[in-house]
């Protein structure tokens, strides 16, 4: 495949699409599909066939506001319909070109206005199983142009210039990582895409892999060229069967088009990608554990250094980046490093995709420029807390992150600001809690998670999280004392400082951040044997109330 052939495909797709007067895009992502998007699409296809209008019905990836699903977007006029069911199909097709169906029309201007879409630019516009759709939206253009016009060093330089930082949570500068691997000695190098989205409450990577798989593959191929690798692996959770099948299809299509394989674009560059399945272990998101898992062993981390950049898969230099990081590569190559550098805040560039969930009106995927205030995300994009409840905290970074209270909401989102607040950027889960959530209980939930997910290799994490869980359980059921609290705090710092890998080092974060901002709730549990949110059931209450609770 050469750049001319690529342009020809794009032209053909455009011509093909021009035959239709209207496009009806149906979101078929997991959330919409579970609300009947499959039947809706079939009904729309049927209605389009019987209609005189020339209508193209297209299946797409996640459009964003999942709580409004199933979603349908009409082109060219960009009307968005929400809560659409199969019965409305005929009315939708009938009204094309006229005024939109009023009862289905969705007004989410505020939701979309504040967003900037880079990673999700194709979400809702392409059929994830059609490579031609991706090519028509400038897909693979960056890869082919770069192979002909740029040196590997030039590519690394452009990524460095963009200021992109790892989107897996740590925020390590991507350009620096790439140049380390590029400089490492060795004929054989590997590129690994970390799609083990173990963070409960986050689904950005799933949406990208399912909705726009070629973007990830293109990013990996560019990385392969830059660091001198000819083999890549995508490590995906087994819990995401759709992502696995979409990626398999995408890889097959890319090979068929000569965009993967030997002598890509008639250059000496060879690159191919293999899929590796995870099997449900949170710790495998840690890079050394992920390497062990790809090699077919138990996913236990190793002490670093040596870093994977020097000695990774089978002892070879290995570049590991997250799905979202790779998804950012192609746009940076296309638009230049400066373009990306100009977005975002001072030390965190570009955009970030968040999975907005929990007690919030518009749940779903959002992509915002770095530096945006948390309050804007929650109140304007998210539509605030529904049901007349009061906002209490937002949890970012999953089990490794922390809870941020209302008074900190005016801080701009960036790696450093979140770290300063006792949380982390994480992979992008953002879970909103209202006054019906008990913060002690939430901390206990996360510690339980870390306890069961601890691989058991190092003692601080294995034993420490178990002891923290016991102490938190005691506080939750009303038998905790102030000594327990002191012990808990002591244990937090021990686990944080002495654990081997990121899982253990960050496990105390949910406890520390809730202790910092919601200490009064802990005190209420300990001193007055009362749970302010009414979540925890106390053992030490008098018999009359306990009978009531049981009944």
């Amino acid at each position, binding site marked *: 495949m050469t750049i001319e052939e690529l342009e020809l495909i794009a032209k053909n797709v455009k011509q093909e699409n021009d035959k239709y007067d209207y496009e009806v895009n149906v979101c078929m992502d*997991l959330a919409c599909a579970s609300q009947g998007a499959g039947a809706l699409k079939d009904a729309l296809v049927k209605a389009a066939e019987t209609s005189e209008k020339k209508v193209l019905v297209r299946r797409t990836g996640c459009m964003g506001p999942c709580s409004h699903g199933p979603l349908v977007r009409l082109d060219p006029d960009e009307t968005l319909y929400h809560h659409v069911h199969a019965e409305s199909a005929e009315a939708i097709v009938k009204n094309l070109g006229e005024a939109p169906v009023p009862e289905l029309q969705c007004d989410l201007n505020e939701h979309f206005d504040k967003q900037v879409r880079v990673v999700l630019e194709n979400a809702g516009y392409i059929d994830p199983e059609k490579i031609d759709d991706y090519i028509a939206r400038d897909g693979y253009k960056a890869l082919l142009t770069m192979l002909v016009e740029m040196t590997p060093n030039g590519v690394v330089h452009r990524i460095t210039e963009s200021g992109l930082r790892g989107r897996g949570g740590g925020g390590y500068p991507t350009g620096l990582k790439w140049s380390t691997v590029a400089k490492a000695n060795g004929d054989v190098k590997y590129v690994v895409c970390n799609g083990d989205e173990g963070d409960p409450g986050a689904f950005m990577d799933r949406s990208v892999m399912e909705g726009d798989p070629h973007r990830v593959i293109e990013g990996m191929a560019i990385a392969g060229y830059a660091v001198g690798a000819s083999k890549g692996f995508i490590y995906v959770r087994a819990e995401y069967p759709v992502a696995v099948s979409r990626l398999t299809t995408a890889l097959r299509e890319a090979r068929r088009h000569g965009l993967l394989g030997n002598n890509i674009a008639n250059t000496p560059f060879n690159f191919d990608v293999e899929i590796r399945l995870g099997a449900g272990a949170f710790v495998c998101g840690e890079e050394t554990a992920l390497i062990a898992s790809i090699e077919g062993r138990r996913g236990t981390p190793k002490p670093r250094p040596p870093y994977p950049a020097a000695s990774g898969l089978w002892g070879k230099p290995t570049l590991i980046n997250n799905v979202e990081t790779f998804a950012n590569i192609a746009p940076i190559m296309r638009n230049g490093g400066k373009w990306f550098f100009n977005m975002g805040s001072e030390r965190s560039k570009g955009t970030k995709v968040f999975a907005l969930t929990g007690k919030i009106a518009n749940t779903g995927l959002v992509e915002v420029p770095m530096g945006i205030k948390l309050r804007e995300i929650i109140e304007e994009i998210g539509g605030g807390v529904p049901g007349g409840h009061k906002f209490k905290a937002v949890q970012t970074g999953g089990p490794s992150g922390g809870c941020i209270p209302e008074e900190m909401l005016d801080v701009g989102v960036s790696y450093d600001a979140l770290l300063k607040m006792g949380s982390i950027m994480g992979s992008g889960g953002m*879970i909103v809690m209202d006054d019906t959530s008990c913060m002690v209980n939430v901390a206990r939930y996360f510690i339980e998670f870390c306890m069961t997910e601890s691989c058991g290799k190092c003692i601080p994490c294995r034993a420490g999280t178990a002891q923290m869980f016991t102490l938190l359980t005691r506080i939750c059921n009303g038998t905790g004392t102030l000594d327990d609290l002191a012990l808990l705090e002591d244990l937090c710092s021990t686990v944080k400082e002495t654990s081997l890998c990121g899982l253990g080092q960050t496990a105390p974060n949910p406890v520390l951040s809730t202790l910092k901002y919601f200490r009064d709730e802990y005190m209420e549990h300990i001193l007055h044997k009362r749970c302010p949110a009414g979540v925890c059931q106390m053992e030490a209450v008098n018999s009359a109330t306990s009978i009531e609770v049981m009944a």
Partner: protein
Amino acid sequence: MRKNGFARRALIETLHTVQSSFGYLDDDSIRFVAMSLRVPLSQAYGVATFYHYFTMKPPGKHTVTVCAGTACYIKGADKLIAAAEKRLGIAQGQTTADGQISLMTARCVGACSRAPVALCDGEVVGEMTRDQVLEQLERWIVE
């Protein structure tokens, strides 16, 4: 195994194939996989027990998997699990004595925007209520 060229590194892929064909891994199948791929039995058993996705118990005829991810937990997944446990008289991770229903929990299936979520025989059902879970269980019980 042939697809992966009997490579040792394909141990996890092979175990996935075995589990999706038979529903679970038993001693015999682990022994067989270990022998064919020439990996130590200890490693094969270690991998099979390390990862949560692999199960060594045969599943029931129907499986309800309640998502216990953070978003689902905040929206009351624990109450769904408790209700199902009470109705079936088993704890999570177990199967009823007649082999009809298995009650499982998952660490996030990625449908957080529709929390709380449950998988009924693999199909995602969003915004589950306690009554919906019980209704589904009743239907399976009478079967």
